[in-house]
């Protein structure tokens, strides 16, 4: 394959020479803008929307954001290397189904949870093998496993819904820290987010991921084991999706084969809104966290304000489009301005 990155738009390749320096400010500005937008939306909702600024509502909002937030973390890393994993929601569903089946057959729940996460890792490894060992495009591979894993989930659990999980486990999934606003599940997600953030932004490993995403060929030449890095990212992505499957099962107290259906697009939308470039090589974890929360807060606030569900789709989609069009348009305008400046500069020199 000539290009490792995804849909490189024909007009522009990332990290190509000077263009990269000129637009390097965009992601930094974007995640700052996103965090400000998030704060604004939170403040605005607290002032304008009845019932938004309560501990109970914060609990609801954050609980809804946990699954997307969890899966978005490894997805960020995968997209930064220029790959994508569309099978995450099906992995979540299959892990949930297997969890139900194992629980039915009498395994202790501790072991069931470990097995579900391990299964997630294995499913991720399958994606990783297809992508790295066979050199297949991850978009196509994970569309394939999206169908395959979801199908297997139905094969495993069929039409059943396993619901008799012990009450102390299911209530633990929604329990909050003292104060009643912050669910423990979100605390865990936040800790994991910090861990991912440190790995991505403060370790050589993280820098390698950016290098791979910017230019895989160059990364390979500079001695980075590109295939191995990508493989392990897929494994982590699968394992975290498995973990999200465990959370989903316990939170809704029901293991079903259709759990989390369609979540992959919501996760990808949050990651892209967070400013991660689909070409790879750019994006920050802070931006993605802000993206996840922004979508969650908007959804919650609009729902509280009795805005119909279809409007939420329109808002989500528009935000996604704006998230790529605006920074790009600004960058293009800047570039044109810079070119004009330079042009005028030489002009003056010539005549001055």
């Amino acid at each position, binding site marked *: 394959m000539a290009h490792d990155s995804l849909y490189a738009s024909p007009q522009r390749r990332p990290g190509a020479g000077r263009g990269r320096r000129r637009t390097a400010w965009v992601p930094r500005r974007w995640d700052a803008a996103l965090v400000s937008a998030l704060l604004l939306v939170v403040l605005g909702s607290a002032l304008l929307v009845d019932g938004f600024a*309560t501990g109970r509502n914060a609990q609801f909002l954050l609980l809804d954001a946990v699954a997307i937030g969890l899966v978005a973390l490894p997805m960020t890393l995968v997209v930064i290397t220029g790959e994508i994993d569309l099978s995450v929601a099906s992995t979540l569903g299959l892990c949930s189904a297997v969890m139900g089946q194992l629980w039915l057959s009498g395994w202790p729940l501790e072991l069931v949870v470990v097995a579900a996460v391990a299964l997630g890792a294995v499913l991720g490894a399958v994606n990783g093998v297809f992508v790295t060992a066979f050199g297949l495009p991850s978009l196509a591979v994970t569309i394939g496993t999206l169908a395959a894993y979801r199908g297997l989930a139905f094969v495993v659990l069929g039409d059943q819904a396993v619901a008799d999980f012990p009450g102390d486990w299911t209530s633990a999934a929604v329990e909050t820290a003292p104060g009643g*606003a912050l669910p423990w599940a979100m605390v865990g997600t936040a800790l994991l987010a910090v861990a991912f953030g440190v790995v991505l932004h403060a370790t050589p490993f993280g820098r390698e991921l950016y290098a791979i995403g910017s230019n895989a060929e160059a990364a390979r030449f500079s001695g980075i084991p590109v295939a191995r890095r990508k493989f392990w990212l897929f494994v982590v992505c699968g394992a975290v999706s498995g973990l999200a499957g465990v959370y989903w099962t316990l939170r809704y107290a029901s293991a079903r084969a259709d759990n989390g259906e369609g979540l992959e697009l919501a996760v990808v939308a949050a990651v892209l809104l967070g400013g991660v470039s689909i070409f790879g090589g750019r994006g920050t974890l802070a931006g993605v966290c802000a993206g996840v929360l922004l979508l969650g807060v908007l959804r919650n606030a609009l*729902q509280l304000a009795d805005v119909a569900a279809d409007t939420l789709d329109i808002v989500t989609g528009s935000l996604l489009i704006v998230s790529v069009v605006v920074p790009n348009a600004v960058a293009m305008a800047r570039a044109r301005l810079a070119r004009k400046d330079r042009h005028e500069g030489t002009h003056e020199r010539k005549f001055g």
Partner: protein
Amino acid sequence: MLRSDRRGRRRGGASRVGVAAVAWTALLATAACGGTTRDENAEPEDRGGPTGEADPDAPLRDDLVVAFLPKQVNNPYFTVADGGGETAVGEFGGEYKESGPTEASASSQVSHVNTLSQQGTDVIALAANDPNAVCGALDSARDAGARVVTFDSDTNPGCRDLFVNQATAEDIARTQVELIAEQIGGEGEVAILSATPNATNQNAWIALMEEELAAPEYADIELVTVAYGNDEDEKSFQETQGLLRSYPDLAGIISPTTVGLAAAARYLSGSEFQGEVALTGLGTPNQMREYVHDGTVESFALWDPAELGYLAAYAGAALASGQITGAEGETFTAGELGDYTIGADGVVVLGPPTVFEEGNVDDYDF
């Protein structure tokens, strides 16, 4: 050059993590501050919970907020049912609203229940996509003072106050078996075209139909398979094709779901099997009118979803006004539908299903 670039990026990374931390803290602080205010003014007033005393003579309150939460918004069946609810709410003078997910998935209703409870809704009328997934949210909504009435599809009885059943499962199963037996002349192979494999009500009806078919008078009727059209038009259409191809001697199809019945009827009406293979099930007159008139379908059954929503609204209002607590044997009046008595497990039954055929199908509009 490269090194300084890299260091710059690392610093940028750290500051970005810092920004994120600030954002999180701010969000949580907002939430936490809110937490204290909520405790001050959102104390749920006591309206006589399930443990309280019923006062059969209490008037219906006229300040109730009644919310309908269908399996899926923009689903025509629930649009009609919720419309019935709106009529009822208009009669007793409360505030009506409809809120729900665009996809009928088990978990998608949870955030809507949470929102409704957060809005201080008095009555939540819910058609559940899964008997357990919404339970946690419903419990917390009831703790916050909401009354929960389920309709069409129940949750676990512990999670709601009342279930308004469209017809007993036995009635539904019996009616459909009677209709198909009549149409195929009491003998032959029949198949069932259901919705999703884990639809609670579908599976209950199918189990009862199997029981019914085991009776001696249906000894010559054999149920050969259950196919699943997932309540998707196209899938149901394809499954009908598959049934007719796999079972050449098929005499009839029962489709206890409106989507499945309409799709199967459309397939039959355009195929060589029209009039040869009998079809019945649950469907709406508007969708089936054409196929009844062109001879594809002789008769089918359904309750009036508008009446279902109407009854659910009145039941919720009676609960929230303290007329009833949801205990067995209590009675309440549901507007022009008359009096209803609560049965075992807090179930109120709307009545036996209506059978639609050539003679009466044009009298209904839903």
